[in-house]
């Protein structure tokens, strides 16, 4: 069984993972560092979090749900009492480069599997910001989103499971959120 290392951009490597009971002979123990913070934990936290002032948690969650909808996500779960919204969307994962390679190899008699669909999952979590004396503030919130992706190929095998950590994606989300929050505050 292959494992991808956290943080590595996997655009160039198609790894076939068969997540089924038929998998034999692979190490079945959890990786040693699976539940340990990594050196980039703090950096990742900053990338994935923003603080918003002048808004209640409920308003922020409502604005966030709006942004997720705008981005084509379906809301799967929510627990507003804990500031949690979970959303996902399924999209095609066909990439022109892969299809070209597949066709080329097919002409040579080899088979190259092609990614077909992907599911993108997002956890959006809000939490009141703390005042100087450590008490939760009602009018300032910290929002953190974590995103991950699963990709299947044309044989319905899982080829990629990864956290999404490109800064541009988070920045784009938070830009949309700022606009949405402004609208929410204006009660539009």
């Amino acid at each position, binding site marked *: 069984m292959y494992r*991808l290392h956290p943080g590595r951009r996997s655009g160039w490597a198609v790894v076939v993972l068969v997540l089924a009971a038929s998998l034999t002979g692979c190490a079945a123990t959890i990786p040693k560092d*699976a*539940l340990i913070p990594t050196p980039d934990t703090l950096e*990742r936290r900053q990338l*994935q979090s923003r603080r918003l002032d002048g808004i209640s948690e409920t308003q922020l969650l409502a604005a966030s749900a709006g942004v997720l909808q705008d981005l084509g996500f379906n809301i799967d779960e929510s*627990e507003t009492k804990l500031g949690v919204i*979970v959303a996902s969307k399924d999209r095609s994962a066909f990439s022109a480069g892969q299809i070209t390679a597949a066709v080329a190899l097919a002409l040579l008699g080899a088979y190259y599997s092609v990614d077909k669909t992907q599911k993108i999952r997002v*956890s959006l979590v809000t939490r009141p910001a703390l005042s100087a004396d450590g008490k939760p503030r009602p009018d300032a919130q910290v929002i953190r989103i974590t995103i991950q992706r699963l990709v299947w190929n044309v044989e319905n095998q899982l080829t990629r499971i*990864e956290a999404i950590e490109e800064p541009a994606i988070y920045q784009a989300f938070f830009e949309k959120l700022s606009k949405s929050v402004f609208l929410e505050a204006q009660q539009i």
Partner: protein
Amino acid sequence: MEMDQSAVQLRSYQQRAFDTADKEQTLRSVIATLQDLSFVVDKADLDLGTVSATKLSGYQVRMTVTARPRGTTQMLVRANAQYMDKAVESPKPYQDFFTALEKSMFLTAHQVD
């Protein structure tokens, strides 16, 4: 009996007690810790006191963490993890999780017998 003994042992390293009566803050700290550990939260329920999350970093780990009051002054936090299609039954991953949760909560994780 051997099976009872190992079930008791398993439970002892899957749970810790924290000196707080605040279930909501405990669960919010659990959620923040899981996000720090690169998990995506799947489900959360304040009344039930549960949080479930999945980590996909080239491998899949699923965790469920529950928090419930223990007496009037403590919260009992129990975690169980699944790696691929097997339950995680060694103490170290849970120790790692509770170490991270301690930092998030600014409270000590007490062993529970």
